[in-house]
């Protein structure tokens, strides 16, 4: 019995591993990666990297002017990591990370429209040399800055490059409030422009 259990466990383990490897492979096939500019152009400029996982994809057919049109609707999980700075004043430097879901529509010509909602988000400002005055004492602050809860919403357009490793380009307008900033909530806007990469296309 003991021998049977060991053989069963071993077989089941191998089976699970094989299954996981299959799922892993399928997981990465559904992934796209992105890199792009993120900033306000005049006051802060930086870089964002991110990844998207294609959770659901639906083809919708429409008939317009007696021609059949197929639009693809995707729901994607996404995560972003970015950094932006104001080189002039050094007062608007910060890194951010956010996670959420994207809805994207792609038409027959490859034109895309997307709405990205990231309810989980964090912004960490990085300040230059900072001294803290507390109870009459003065100390230099190590890695000065502040952390803020910072969800975001982005609305944008893009263009699909079917079958290419650089699979798409995008241009988003991003709204990302920071809680609690001074005595309230700071609304911030930025522009994101970049490219998405699908390495699965390289295999083909």
């Amino acid at each position, binding site marked *: 019995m003991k021998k049977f259990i060991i053989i069963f466990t071993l077989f089941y383990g191998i089976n699970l591993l094989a299954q996981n490897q299959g799922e892993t492979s399928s997981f*990465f096939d559904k992934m796209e*990666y992105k*890199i792009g500019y993120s900033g*306000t152009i*005049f*006051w*802060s400029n*930086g*870089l964002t*990297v991110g990844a998207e996982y294609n959770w659901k994809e639906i083809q919708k057919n429409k008939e317009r002017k007696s021609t059949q049109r197929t639009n693809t609707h995707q729901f994607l999980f996404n995560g972003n*990591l970015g*950094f932006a*700075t*104001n080189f*002039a*004043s*050094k*007062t*608007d*430097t910060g*890194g951010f990370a956010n996670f959420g879901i994207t809805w994207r529509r792609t038409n027959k010509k490859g034109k895309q429209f997307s709405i990205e909602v990231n309810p989980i988000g964090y912004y960490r*400002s*990085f*300040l*230059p*040399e*900072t*001294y*803290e*005055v*507390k109870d009459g004492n*003065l100390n230099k*602050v190590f*890695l*000065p*800055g*502040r952390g803020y809860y910072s969800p975001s919403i982005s609305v944008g357009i893009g263009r699909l490059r079917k079958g290419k490793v650089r699979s798409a380009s995008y241009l988003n307008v991003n709204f990302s409030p920071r809680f*609690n*900033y*001074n*005595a*309230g909530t*700071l*609304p*911030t*806007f930025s522009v994101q422009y970049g490219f998405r*990469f699908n*390495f699965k296309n390289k295999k083909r």
Partner: protein
Amino acid sequence: MKQYQLIFLQLIIVAFAMSIVTSCSNEFDLDNLDETLFVRHKNADMAAYIKGNGSEKVFLITLHGGPGGRGLGFTGSAFNTIEKEYGVVYFDQRGSGNSQGNYSENDVSIDLMTEDVLALVQVMKRKFGNDARFFLLGGSWGGTLGTATLLKDQSDFKGWIDVDGASNPFGMYELYKESFTATATSQIELGNSVDFWESILELVAQVDPVNNLDDFLELNSKAFEAEEKLFEDGFIDNVENGLEGNITFYSYNFLTSGWNGNQIASILVDDQGLFQIIDFTDQLPQITIPSLFISGRYDMVVPVASAQTAFDTIGSTSKELLIFERSGHGPLFSEPERFSTEVLKFMDQHK
């Protein structure tokens, strides 16, 4: 794929390294300072931009207007001249400009903001040594905050320069009515912008005789319009020349600083009754350091009578009141050469 992932990782590391390098740089040239540092005090991180010639370790700490203005708003041709001789500290007050933090509205008070200024002085001493000497300059609302700061502790300052400052914000309601009536009457007699000045007289007749915030804000808004008319009719010099070299645009995200400014102004003006309660006139005799008052003859926003009262009341034995004849609420921009000459003369005398 691993190759691309490595590139992503490298980019992130470079970005973080850049932030650490910029935040840890500690070298500066005293003759030609261009430093940005932050003062952390009671849950606020406030930006101080230190510029100019610090070779004598004499610094002019500036307090901007508003409430909710921008520290670097003073920059321009007048301060460029001052920077050639002395160090200038442009300070973004709590909730203003690029300052950030996390505190409640109830924590904000003028008293707390005076402590912020004194914390800045402590930081400056740490950075430049205990032999550093300081002058304090406040413009408009900065004049109110500066007065409050000196009443709390004037021991660290060699002199006080009040530019269009309001040491009695409460009293401005009456001053508006007097100043509007006098200016409107003389302008109508001269035949200048008659319709506008008649509307000003009507407004003065309509406002509540008792200090009222809504009416105060309307009078305050009209004061800016009145200065535009006085500029158009040739009584106030163009401020454009004085604004040459102003570096506000690229230094402040206008959405961030605008939102900050509105919020702190709302807290101090609407919630805490800045213009309904605050009057430092009776305490001015306690200020004894050398003082210079500068006001524009046609300042409709903080009328010249405010500077006259402060000058008459302050306890300083060494004091001077200068009226800039071609200026409104911004003599540093409309008469920049005279402004820098007078400020430098005052600093030379008392450093």
